Each structure stands twice: as structure tokens, then as C-alpha cells.
């Protein structure tokens, strides 16, 4: 089955090393841009703090892994896999994401 991609926004709407939140098939998704123009997408929900906030966290290099530190209690979530490093049982979903013709798309 071929993957369906939704346009989210222009790449130029993102600021490097920060995140935004997108509404995608009724779910809140946190989308991040790093300093090499790679995009990442994981759930916006922080299970540790029980709130939809991950898009508003700081991007952190955690021993070589690119993560976001939750703005609530600072647990790190791997941007590629959604794994919660401190509390693996609280890992979140990662979404397929790409940039096509200047548009950020979620799958």
C-alpha cells in the first residue's frame, strides 16, 4: 500500500533547532528541524508530565542521540524513534516525515 503524505507547512515556516506542533489525522504531532535541515516527527504528548507539550521542548544532543528534552520535567525523547531515554516505558510514537518541494509532509 502506498503511503499517504499530508502537507503540514512550508519548510521555511520552521526555525532551525526548534519544534512546532501539527494536527495530523486528529493527532498532535511534534515536528522538529535540526541545523542540517533534517526534519523529525514524534508525538506531541509527554506521558511523563501528561500534557501535550513536546514540540515546545529544547533540542538536546544526548550522548550523540538527537533528542528533545520535555519542557515539563526534562526527560529526553529520541527524535528519530520516540524512545524516552530515562523512562523507556514512556516512549512515544514516531511518525514518517519528509520534505517534498519545500513542503514538510507527515505520513
Amino acid at each position, binding site marked *: 500500500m502506498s503511503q499517504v503524505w499530508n502537507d*503540514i507547512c512550508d519548510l521555511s515556516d520552521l526555525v532551525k533547532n526548534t519544534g512546532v506542533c501539527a494536527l495530523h489525522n486528529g493527532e*498532535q504531532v511534534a515536528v522538529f528541524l*535540526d541545523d542540517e535541515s533534517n526534519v523529525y516527527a514524534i508525538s506531541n504528548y509527554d506521558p511523563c508530565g501528561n500534557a501535550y507539550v513536546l514540540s515546545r521542548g529544547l533540542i538536546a544532543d544526548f550522548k550523540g542521540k538527537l533528542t528533545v528534552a520535555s519542557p515539563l520535567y526534562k526527560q529526553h525523547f529520541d527524535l528519530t524513534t520516540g524512545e524516552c531515554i530515562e523512562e523507556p516505558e514512556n516512549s512515544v510514537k514516531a511518525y514518517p516525515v519528509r520534505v517534498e518541494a519545500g513542503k514538510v509532509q507527515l505520513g
Partner: protein
Amino acid sequence: MSKQKIVVVGNGMVGHKFIENMIEHPDYDQYEVITFSEEPRLAYDRVQLSYYFAGKTAEELMLTSPDYYDEHGVRYIVKDKVISLDTANNKIVTESGREESYDQLILATGSYPFVPPIPGKDQDHCLVYRTIEDLEAITASAKESKVGVVVGGGLLGLEAANALKNLGLETHVVEFAPRLMAVQLDEGGGDVLRAKIEALDVGVHTEKNTKEIVAGETCRYRMNFADGTFLETDMILFSAGIRPQDELARQFDIEIGPRGGIVINNQCQTSIPNVYAVGECALWDNKIYGLVAPGYQMAKVAVDHITGGNLAFEGADMSTKLKLLGVDVASIGDAQARTPGCLSYTYSNSHDGVYKRLIVSEDNTKVLGAVLIGDVDAYGNLLQMMLGDIAIPGSPEALILPSVDGAPALGVDALPDSAQICSCHDVSKGDIFEAVKGGCTDLAGIKSCTKAVTGCGGCAAMTTQVMNAALTEMGVEVNNNLCDHFEYTRQEVFDIIRTKKIKTFDELLAGYGSGKGCEICKPAVGSMLATQWNEYILSDDNIQLQDTNDIFLANMQKDGTYSVVPRMAAGEVTPDQLIALGEIGKEFNLYTKLTGGQRIDFFGAQLHQLPIIWEKLIAAGFETGHAYGKSLRTVKSCVGSTWCRYGMLDSVSMAVLLEMRYKGMRTPHKVKMAVSGCTRECAEAQSKDVGVIATDKGWNLYLCGNGGMKPRHADLFATDLDDETLIKYVDRFYMFYCHTADRLQRTSVWMDNMEGGLDYLKSVIIEDKLGICEDLEADMARIIDNYECEWKKTINSKERLKRFAHFINSDATDDTLAYVAERGQERARIDMDARAKIAKGDVIETVEVV
């Protein structure tokens, strides 16, 4: 079995130490302790007595409290002197007629000031310096005097002279001997000290034997000296030495020495075995020790002997290091070079007022003593070499020459575990090692768990060295690196940013770091860039560095919504502004509360509402309150002289001025200030990083206090300042803090970890010891000039406002939020699971969101 009863006569420093050691003894439950004090209060810190003039209260000087004694079953009777002793029947009687029997009696009666038998010495305004009551009398007398004379140029005399000078009197010191501090200093040292003290406008008159005190012509009194000269003065303070308080022993058949003092053996027993004497009343090996450390040692020995141990008192070292009238002075061991055959080395520099003399053994290998004036850095090193009988590495003169490269410093490794590092509190090298192993890994921790450095402070440098040695030994690399990405301390990073004029994180990371940065270094660097350049924190370069609170200029709450705190400088608010706030709160249905910082906080604002709310706030004349930043929070004020009948100065105007001056300044941790209009202190200024209290002569400045997790009172830093000097000092203080503190280190911990502590801070800020004050002021001026309300700037930028939408691709809002009604407002739904988790401590790191 009935308990043994111990009566302690005298509740001074040593009497209390004895009791404290008893309480801490494992067998304490087999004893019952009762103590009598002639003074109207329990033991206080006599060593720090002079701080009373600097604003410390009797309460703050206390070493113990009725509560502590009650809790441990110690009975105490104050203001009742023991006047008779019956050693045959083991009984004492007090002035009020109270009788008490004992099994063991402890005489801890201290000493009294010696007043030479000069005719006229008993008049009003002829005073001594020993108790809090004496100090009250001195303060009262100074109010009616212009000139004051201290009789006696020893340690205490100079301390007393300092007090008189601070009380605003023209001050003189009259000394019988040919030089000041004759007991501790040699002639050269005495000369340098004299020059330094005269330069402070204190008259020094040596070789003066006062013959009589008669009525004066220009002042209240005239002191006539044996050599025919005279000096006029309004008050006289005798500080001509101490005499042991041995009157009880003398009258009731306990052996005393030929020149006074209760004779004790190595176990601190007097001639009657169940009567002990400790502290300044005791005579051991024909010596009276006028310092507190030997007294503490005696207290320890007496407790040990009573409880069946075999410790012995074997004499004590009398080396001292202090600051007299702002001049550093130290004397170690045989300062007068009395040891037969000893050699000496002298370094003297009259330009800088430095004098150092080192006395070494005949064979040039051991330190016997030293005199240091003006530069006492070598004190700890030399003292340990003398006490530890350590061979001098290399040539002796290098030990006192100004620090040329390669001067042999004593490695603390060379010291035995038993080496005493802090003499005030008898803390050994081994004690410090143990404390470090127990988890105290910074100076502030060592201070609180061993008490080292909390007495005279003279051991700070040595204590730090020992602590670092212990950390190294434990394999803890003393690593103050900012984080994994920067192998520099925060202070070093700050220096790099300043000197290399770095303006962005990327530039810094490329040149001096590794990896991509993290949630620790990014906000820390963001804060430093802001302190140094004060550019817009939401510029494209800076935005990636900010925590969510700084990005959205509001504090994130538990449910992902935000709080909004407009600035309300000094807590002042007009009725119209209040109405505007009320309307905004109502329109957006925000939970509204007064904060502990005298302003209004709205809670529950959603991301997309923030700019709309702020537009309205700005229209009503508000600015951002920076409740989200590591920055100045509030300057709390009391009502002050404009309305309050006690107000000395206009505390509200000063608080507004300070808040407007420092608003927006980014700091290593948040800072808080307060201004009170008088000593009643309604603004609680002494609990702030910077506290200001009005007096009848100006402003008193207090620094480095805080509330929070570990409350700490601020220290009095300077008194009676005018507006301009106050602001100058605060500018310098904040900038020095910004330049040198660690990340998230509040001012109190910063100062407590600083070698030299408060005195050092004074030397940097008041005396400009490092020669950096001009730079500090210029840096502060730049911050103030570049101030801009971040919210004003943000709502005027379309580009920036884009961020304030919950979804980048939809106008929908977060539908996961839920509220409950409570007391007429709505508040966030409480999530019990998350709460339990926080209570259990399952949180990664203390929340450092703000």
C-alpha cells in the same frame, strides 16, 4: 541507677561547648546537666561580637537556644551568678539563694577585662569590651561623644578601635608598649601595622603610660600621660588585657596560679578531682589561653574524662590570622624569634604595606614562626608546616617572597590525617575527607557539615585545598565543566564570550565546544549572551537556546498552558491598572492570584491567547515581568516614609528605581530584591539576593540572602550609603555575579563557595581589589541601555507571532485541556497519577523551567 549530675558554672562559649559535647556523647542519658549564667542570656559568639556593630543582633549571635537545651533536658538559669562553693559537700549557691548539688562541677567562668588602676577610671563613659551589654553601653556613649580612645593596642584593642571608628568617632589607640600587638608582632611588623592604621586616620600613641583621667577642656576628659603629654577624649574604652575569672576558686580553696587562673592538669581537673575548669579561667602549664579554640579543646577533654575516656589536653597553638581595621594580620608560632639559634628572613614592601618575616630552625629546615602583615596568603601553608614539623621544600625565603613562579606550596598530601585545618572548630584533614566521602563536594557543603571556615574564616584556603585533594583521591575529577559539550566552566565560557566577542551559540560551539549542545548548555549560553550583549532573545540565532518559558515569554504550567505576570514595580499599581487587569482576567477566564512577589499572576492562558492578552496588557501600560527568566524578578517594597509613621526614607521610590534599572537583566539564576523603609523590615529585605534597608543616615545594603529550599539570611555588606553609592555597589555586585557564578547558582551559594567569602566580595566591590569595577559598571550600563520589553517587541512582529499557535497547520486549539471550578474560578484538573509520581521523586531533575 540515678543519673550523675553535672553543674556548669558559666554559659559562655566554652561552657556551652562542654554541654554540646555532653549532649552529643552516646552515654548522655546517664547524665543530667544544669548550667548557670551571670549574663542575661545563654551562650553567644563572643568571637564575632564586633559584628554587633555591623548590624548583627544578639539573636543572630546566639550559639544555642532555650529550645535546644529544653529538647535535651539541660536546665539553665540565666542572670544568676554562682557565689559560693562547698567542695566538701558538693554544693553551690547562687546570688538569688538557689542551692544545687553536683557530682561533677565545671568551672567555665571565662575572664574579665583588666582595667589598669588609673585614677579616674570609674567615671561614666569609661567602658570595656566583652559582653553584649558592654556593646550597648558603647553605642549609647558614642551617641554623646565625638572622640574615643582605646587603651591597649593588642588584638582586642584594635578590634575595639575599629568599632569606635565605625560608630563615627575620631579614634585613638593608646599603648603602653613601644609597638602595636606587642605580643604577636616583631618590631618591623609593628611599624608596618602602625603606618597602615594611621593611614586610616586612627591616631596611634605608643609608649604612653596613662597617669590619670581628669576633666578635659575641649572634650569630656583629658588623659594625662607619665611623659607629660596628654590626649583629650569624650570616651575611653579599656582593652588592656584579660584576667581569668577565678574568684570562686580563689575564695573556696581550689588552687590558683601565682598570677591568677585556676590550675588544671592534662585532664582539666582542678586541685579537687571532681571539679574541672575549662576555657579562659583555666591555667594549664602556667598558661592562660585567650582564644576560643584551646577552650573548645579543653571542653572536649573534660567531657571525655568524665565519661571514662583518656584524652589529654596538651597545650594549643596560639597562631592567629585576622583583619583589623581592614588590615590583614597574622602571627604564627615563635613570631618574636625567641628560639635559641633560630634564623629569620624578612620581606618588606612599604609601597604596598606588606611585611613578612619567617623564623626557621638553626639548620634552616623547619618553620618555627612567622609574622605576616598586608598579605597573609601564606598563613595556612606556614602554619601547617610548623604544626606538622614538615621539612621546608627548597629555600625558605621562597615561602614569603611575593608569588614568583615555582614558590613551593605545601601539598596537602604531605599532611597527616590528624592535621588540624580549622582551629576554631577543631576540624582535621581527616574530618574533611570524611565529609567529602559523605557527599559534601563543595565548600558550602563542607561548611555546613563540619563547621570548618564558619568561625574566624582563616582556614578557607586550606580547607578548599584539602577538599579538592579528597575529591581527587576519590577519583572524582573536580569537573565544573558546563556540560558534555563544553569543557569549560561557566565562568570560562563567559570569559570566552566576552573577550572573543562571540554573539551566537553556533559560533561558540564551533570554536570551543563539541556535539550539538543540550538543554543544559543552550539556555546557559543564551543567558550569558543576553547578559553580555542583551540582544533580543527571540532572534533566529537565539531562539533555539531558550527554554519554552523564554520562547513564549511566559511560564509553562503542568497542563501545557502558561501563566502571565506583568511587571508591577515595587508592587505599586493604580486603580485603573487594576481594573484593566480585572477585565483581562475576566475576558480570558484566567485563574487570578496575587504572588508572593507583590504582583498579579494569571494562570491557564493558552499559547494562542498569549499575544492577545499581552496586547491588552501593553495598552494598559504594563511590561513583561520576566517571571519566566533567570533574571530579576521583583523588588519588593514596604510603604516607607511616604505614608508610614516609622519610615526613614522613601522605600517605594527606591524599589521602583531599582526594579526599573535591573529589569530584564539575565543572571545565572533568578535574583530578587527588596527595600524596607526602616529597621522593622516589612519588605523582608534580608531574605533577598539584594536587600536594602533605610536608616537615619542612608541605606544599609544586604547581599546574598534567599528564601526557597534552603533559606539564608543576607549579610550586611555596607552601611549608610547614599543613593548613588548604593546603586554603584549593586551594579558591581550583579555584574561580578554574572561573570563568575556557576549556572543556576544563587548568590548565596556563589558567595559561600568563594574563597574569602563576604570579605573578599567587599574587597572586590568596595575597594576594587581586582581593578575591574569600571568594567563591571560599563557592562551594566550596556545592559540597561539595551533594555526593551520583550513582549512589546514580539507583538509587533508578524513573523514571531506565528509561533503562538497551538498548531502550525490549523486554527484549532488544544482540546485536551480540562478544568474544574473552585472558589469562583477555574483551575487545571489535578492529575493524581502525575502528582503521585512527583511526590515519589520520580522526576529527572528539579524543574528548572524558569
